[in-house]
């Protein structure tokens, strides 16, 4: 293990805990089959103790600095700002080790796995970013690693599959259901029921049964805790808008948490797919209804019988028919707003940021850029200041986007 050499990451004090059994307002909870219930109670207890421990926090902060490369900068986007007529700042999670914010959470859960004496981790992945991050942490901590990935995503994220294998993880292709992120989570839960004694389930977003939505938020809030003072340095104030893409919602909640008591408007951009009217999208806040899936009560895309619907998005990371319970609660109180950007708008945002700033975003945050491009001068008044969390880089998506734009694979 490397020792901290930068040491510049200072964690904010632990945030507020959910109420009752993992509740955020009416959302959250622990809806799991009995074999898993005791393990989740243990995990919550372990996390609570660890998160209050200066040693654990010090080790986590050290790894965020020396291994993940934190703190990440906030970049002023001069040419994009000129183009849109609003002042755009980017929180650069794309610059972290492994190329997305997912590394923050897996370092925390990896430390916790070791602390609990477990030797194996399993994970689900959509775009492959969380799978790569988990495989990375598993290599770092010497843990066995199994990653479940939908067959559709294995196909469109072949590079990340190869990276996970290189890192020593086994990748299991999931063919059931819609063969995307939702089904990968189902399969990971089925594995976990059988292996819970030796295995930690490293969930990649602020979804799942308590304590995951709380725990993952705490591991991700470093994004906003860094960004808020960075914005103040550049702007002399909080930004007018804080924008992040939302699938399950971990980079968004990681950003929003530090701004909850600010005057900033919090905007979570969901996957609009082919348009909300088409029925083919991932806009769970806009079009979902309260339900229970993957252990939590939240908003889910479902039919009138309570069968979960397939989501659709050009980006594998947003291709999920639900959203984390804390987002559902923030939407219910109105503290955060959840518009969407379509596949086409995300592809436009992908190209816009590359061409104006020399930064190729992942397709997931390209939705946030696409939304801003559409709304600048409209919902976002000219002259506004806007922080966008660039949750990951677009290398993984380059070949896929080329195919989407040109209609044929690149050689």
């Amino acid at each position, binding site marked *: 293990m490397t020792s901290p050499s930068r040491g510049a990451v200072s964690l904010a004090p632990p945030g507020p805990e959910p109420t009752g059994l993992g509740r955020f307002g009416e959302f959250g909870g622990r809806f799991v*089959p009995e074999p898993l219930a005791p393990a989740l109670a243990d995990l919550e207890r372990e996390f609570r103790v660890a998160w209050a421990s200066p040693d654990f926090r010090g080790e986590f902060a050290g790894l965020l600095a020396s291994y993940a490369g934190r703190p990440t900068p906030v970049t002023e986007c001069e040419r994009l700002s000129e183009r849109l007529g609003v002042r755009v700042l980017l929180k650069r999670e794309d610059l972290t080790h492994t190329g997305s914010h997912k590394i923050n959470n897996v370092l925390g859960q990896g430390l916790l796995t070791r602390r609990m004496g477990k030797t194996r981790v399993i994970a689900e992945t959509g775009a492959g970013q969380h799978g790569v991050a988990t495989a990375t942490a598993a290599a770092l901590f010497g843990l066995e690693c199994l990653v479940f990935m939908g067959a559709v995503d294995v196909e469109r994220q072949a590079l990340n599959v190869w990276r996970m294998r290189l890192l020593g993880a086994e990748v299991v292709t999931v063919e059931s259901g819609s063969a995307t992120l939702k089904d990968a989570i189902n399969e990971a839960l089925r594995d976990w029921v059988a292996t819970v004694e030796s295995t930690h389930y490293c969930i990649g977003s602020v979804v799942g049964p308590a304590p995951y939505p709380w725990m993952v938020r705490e591991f991700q809030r470093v994004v906003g805790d860094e960004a808020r003072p960075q914005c103040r340095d550049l702007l002399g104030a909080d930004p007018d808008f804080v924008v992040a893409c939302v699938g399950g919602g971990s980079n968004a909640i990681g950003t929003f948490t530090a701004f909850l008591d600010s005057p900033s408007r919090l905007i979570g951009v969901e996957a609009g797919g082919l348009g909300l009217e088409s029925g083919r999208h991932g806009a769970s806040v806009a079009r979902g209804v309260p339900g229970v899936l993957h252990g939590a009560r939240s908003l889910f895309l479902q039919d009138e019988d309570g069968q979960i619907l397939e989501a659709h998005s050009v980006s594998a990371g947003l291709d999920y028919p639900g959203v984390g319970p804390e987002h559902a609660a923030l939407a219910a109180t109105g503290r955060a707003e959840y518009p969407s950007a379509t596949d086409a708008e995300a592809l436009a945002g992908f190209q816009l940021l590359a061409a104006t700033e020399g930064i190729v975003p992942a397709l997931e945050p390209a939705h946030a850029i696409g939304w801003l491009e559409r709304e600048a001068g409209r919902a976002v008044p000219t002259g506004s200041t806007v922080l966008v969390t660039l949750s990951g880089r677009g290398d993984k998506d380059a070949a896929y986007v080329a195919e989407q734009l040109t209609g044929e694979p690149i050689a």
Partner: protein
Amino acid sequence: MKLESHLRERREAGRSLLVPYVTGGLGAAWLDVVRAVVDAGADAVEIGIPFSDPVMDGRTIQEASQRALDIGATPAKVVAEAAQLEVEVPLVVMTYYNPVLRAGHERFAASLADAGFDGAIVPDLPLDELDGWGGAAEDAGIETVLLAAPSTPPERLRAICDRSRGFVYGVALMGVTGARERLAAEAVEMGRRCKAATDRPVLVGVGISTPEQAVGAAAAADGVIVGSALIARLLRGGGPEDAHAFVAELRAALDA
């Protein structure tokens, strides 16, 4: 208390209890499959409402659920069709929680009662989250069966046995439903632990697929639940006669 009293009565008569699971809406003959397993000696029947995301189920029941959904099964249709069953044993619905929540606790409980169901198993609704549904079910006279698992600590096991209605479902191993080569070592221990904690009927299920395994698992419990092994026969093209033959075989082994 029809489910529990019925099972108690049969137990007191010295019978080892047998509860087969049938996926509702799996093929046009599914009601005849239920009638056949009752005729072959089932003491109650568990009827599954197919769900899009059955996380407690292995491949066999996943496939059966998907097939039933593909040919148009819905919770309302399965419940309404089950109302046509005039069988002499209690019916227990097995459903994941989301369809219950979508229909509404009271409405769903009332629809079950109207259709003649006596009990419900909701595998992703553990003791800690039982409140909303538990009350509505009780008011409608539906007995909600809780699961106990090998991982359940002793104090929690007592609370589960206390709150469960109808019977206690002892999960025979750490894992999802589906046939296994041999009976899990935990199966007998699970039955023994539940029996020591409660006077309610205790049935052990998950991974019990042959007459020998049924006999082994029933040794320390009041009986067994058999699902995937029966469903696998139906998925391979079997009908009510095959279901009858298989359940009769289980019955004979348990009675021997």
